[in-house]
């Protein structure tokens, strides 16, 4: 067959959640990845346990693009409730594997159908009554494997990789895969589809597949977290659950059973952050992890930690708001809120990881930054980054030691003859010295409070002292700008600049390639922290027209960038916003950008 597209397709499985389809999708993903082919998985799942529609999308490109691409080329349809709509989304020329019982009468004629009697096969060919529902999904792994030309040994590898820790499950799953494969052989071998997978080399060498919340948990562990308090919330829960699993493995003395960490499931997000702040105050590296609704509850304690200057790390795996919003969809909607969380003049350090490797790196260094600046550090990931698998180079082992910041020991207090004050700006950088409770010196103690305080931590309502302290806090945060992860710049030389952050990076990378193909070269700055580096304003100054791309309705970072610019530069900025809860695709950048480019500046 001519016109076969090799290693370039989007696969989509439409199933019912709670049916075990995730394992089947993972087997396919692992099988294809092990052929050396780049994969970009995206899960679209409901806020529900069982019975509602769920979709799994696996994008395959020789370039290794990791952004979502709207419509599928190959569809597996196993959900009668969404069948009619799912069919509509398939691109012309696509392949549709579906339950034989679904009607294709008056359906499209620009796709090829592969009807499979899944229910019947499951009944006759799968022996286990208890596993039948789960294993039905493995049948489509075999059919799709045959259709796309995935070698059988790769399918076997996929099964073994997914059930890595359960070798007993290998055979029964592989049997089901083989039933599907054989069905393909007997019925569809002569009905080729327009897509084919062929082994590649040099594309995914040394890459691994990691979820952002796995990376964040590992980063926190390597960053020395010893107290983590959290409250369950999608899409953040898996970060602390991974932390628990990793800690059970690496932080427990096998002989004594002693644990070098405490991970507490708190009664709510207020308590979660409160525990982390209590621990940070007493000198532990402490964290919490949450999502938007939790961030709202944490406003009170965030202000306390900012004003009383207590180190703590807060992970926000963003989901769609406002309110409960769409709990299982992605968004970059908490940036402006987190940046100034709490009443009064509050400012926080916000890290913006754009890759899973940065989820690891920033999770680790957040603890250094929190200790160094004695303030909360927010790490803003999102559902797309946190809960999907991403190809990534292996993470690097940290070479630097912990930076515990300015902490005075009993000996140092003695050396100072007790002449110290908790909020005295000795070094002129706005960062003061602290002591920890339990420091054995009669002059080490001080009183921490969220009410007005002077340089010696004594209560005061003095107007001058209040203003002086607030000015120092502003100076402290100002000084963090160049100490935080700096923006990444890629400037081949264009008058058009793109500014983006976080998980939007994947779509920007693809959009830039597409734009270059159509003759528009672009420069790119990826913002990685707030308060933002001066490099952002400099980047703006070097360009004529700039597009801030982000996944929220209000252009939150577009606004924040404009605040950093001199008035004559502000007009250069344009805003591209995507906010339907799905990960942004490249077309959502290229299309509006080309339209806006057509408008004179």
């Amino acid at each position, binding site marked *: 067959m001519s016109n076969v597209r090799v290693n370039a397709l989007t696969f989509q499985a439409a199933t019912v959640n709670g049916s075990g389809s995730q394992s089947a999708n993972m087997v396919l993903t692992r099988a294809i990845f092990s052929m050396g082919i780049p994969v970009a998985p995206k899960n679209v799942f409901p806020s529900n346990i069982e019975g509602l529609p769920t979709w799994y999308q696996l994008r395959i490109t020789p370039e290794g693009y990791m952004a979502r691409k709207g419509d599928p080329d190959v569809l597996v349809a196993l959900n009668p409730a969404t069948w009619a709509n799912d069919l509509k989304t398939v691109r012309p020329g696509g392949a549709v594997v579906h339950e034989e019982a679904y009607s294709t009468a008056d359906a499209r004629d620009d796709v090829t159908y592969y009807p499979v009697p899944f229910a019947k096969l499951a009944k006759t060919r799968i022996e286990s009554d208890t596993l039948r529902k789960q294993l039905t999904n493995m049948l489509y792994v075999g059919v799709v494997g045959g259709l796309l030309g995935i070698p059988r040994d790769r399918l076997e590898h996929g099964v073994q990789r997914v059930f*890595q820790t359960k070798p007993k499950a290998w055979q029964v799953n592989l049997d089901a895969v083989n039933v599907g494969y054989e069905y393909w052989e007997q019925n569809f071998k002569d009905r080729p589809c327009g897509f084919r997978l062929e082994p590649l080399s040099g594309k995914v060498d040394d890459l*691994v*597949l990691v979820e952002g919340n796995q990376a964040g948990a*590992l980063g926190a*562990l*390597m960053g*020395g*977290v*010893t*107290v983590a*308090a959290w409250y369950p919330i999608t899409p953040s829960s898996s970060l602390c659950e991974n932390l628990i699993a990793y800690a059970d493995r*690496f*932080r427990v003395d096998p002989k004594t*059973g*002693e*644990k*070098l960490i*405490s991970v507490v499931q*708190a009664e*709510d997000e207020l*308590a*979660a*952050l*409160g*525990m*982390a*702040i*209590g*621990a*940070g*105050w*007493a*000198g*532990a*590296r*402490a964290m919490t992890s949450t999502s938007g609704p939790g961030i709202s509850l944490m406003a*009170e*304690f965030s202000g*306390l930690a900012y004003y009383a200057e207590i180190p703590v790390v807060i992970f926000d795996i963003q989901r769609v708001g406002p309110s409960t919003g769409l709990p299982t969809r992605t968004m970059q909607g908490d940036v402006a809120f987190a940046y100034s969380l709490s009443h009064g003049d509050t400012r926080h350090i916000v890290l913006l990881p754009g890759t899973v490797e940065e989820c690891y790196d920033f999770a680790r260094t957040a603890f250094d930054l929190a200790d160094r600046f004695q303030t909360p550090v927010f790490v803003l990931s999102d559902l797309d980054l946190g809960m999907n698998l991403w190809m990534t180079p*292996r*993470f690097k*082992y*940290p070479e630097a*030691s*912990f930076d515990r910041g300015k902490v005075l020991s009993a000996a140092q207090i003695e050396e100072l003859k007790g002449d110290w004050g908790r909020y005295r700006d000795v070094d002129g950088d706005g960062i003061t010295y602290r*002591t*920890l*409770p*339990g*420091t*054995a010196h*009669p002059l*080490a*103690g*001080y*009183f*921490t*409070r*969220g*009410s007005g305080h002077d340089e010696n931590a004594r209560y005061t309502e003095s107007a001058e002292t209040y203003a002086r302290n607030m000015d120092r806090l502003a100076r402290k945060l100002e000084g963090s700008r160049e100490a935080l992860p700096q923006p990444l710049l890629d400037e081949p030389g264009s008058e058009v600049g793109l500014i983006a952050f976080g998980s939007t990076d994947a779509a920007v990378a693809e959009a830039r390639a597409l734009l270059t193909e159509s003759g528009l070269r672009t420069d790119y700055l990826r913002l990685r922290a707030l308060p933002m580096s001066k490099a952002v304003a400099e980047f703006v100054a070097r360009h004529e027209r700039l597009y801030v791309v982000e996944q929220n309705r209000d252009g939150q970072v577009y606004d924040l960038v404009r605040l950093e610019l001199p008035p004559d530069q502000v007009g250069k900025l344009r805003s591209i916003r995507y906010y339907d809860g799905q990960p942004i695709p490249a077309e959502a950048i290229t299309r509006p950008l080309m339209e806006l480019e057509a408008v004179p500046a």
Partner: protein
Amino acid sequence: MSATLNHIGLGRDAYKGAATTLCAGCGHNSITNHLVKALYELGVEPHQLAKMSGIGCSSKTPAYFVEQAHGFNGVHGRMPALTTGAQLADRRLIMLGVSGDGDTVSIGLGQFMHMVRRNVDCTYIIEDNGTYGLTKGQFSATADVGSVQKKGAVNTFQPIDPCAIALTLGCSFVARSFSGDGKQLVPLIKAAIAHRGMALLDVISPCVTFNDHDGSTKSYSWVKEHDEQIQDVSFIPFFEEIAVDYEPGTAVSVEMHDGSHLVLKKLAEDYDPTDRMRAMRLVEESRAKGQLLTGLLYIDESMADFATTEHLPAERALRDLGEDELRLSRADFDTFMAEFA
């Protein structure tokens, strides 16, 4: 000289704090004085003490004792979370939380209950005056039905009894006392500090400005008339030899974790402080009779505290650990990364 120094060589002055800014005659100031006495007599190392509080008149008081110690005046109703976290960071700290009835039983009720549930090693004092003092006299949730506000308003809602809640949740140390009764309160404070786990002390502490009048059930005169003591409490610290003189069957001696002894000499009731069901019943019965039951209501020295349940090292603080112990080794790290391939 030695008469004025405690067993770790400190004078009483080492346990004093800044001058109080509360109203003259406030019950809270009496509690502060009893705390100073108890801490001094116990010989607590000031630097080992962590004074925690929320918001309100009560929560200001940690500034008024043991100035040498670290203190943390947090946010309203959230002292339990801060205390829990600090305990985990360094379990060797002696956590002393001071809260009020509004701070604990209204805005902080959830955190209070969960702290009890976790049995965090902490002395938790409620300075209970049935009113919001700092915001000038509104009812709190511990005010009794029929209690009259200074401006004449009558409370129509059932009170929440923190001791009853604590008993229901299985709190490992539950006591009630009165700010004006140092004879009872000082040994109870000592025992609470010696106790390893959550020790709740609900101390009725009249508010002289807003709630010390006829019609208030948290006034000096009301408490004095209705106080029913269930036992004579005495505390013998571990560094003193125990020599108690009492008739067999009339007293109970409870041995604490650090070897101290709490001796409870029975008064009116034939009271067993280790019988939780009975304690709950007695608290309810006395409430129905309009009595204020004081003394040690319940104690369980066998329950593991939170840091122990969490399997934390016994003698070391999490906060002191460095990268050599907290990071994966290079070999473990490489193995772990390979698992994602």
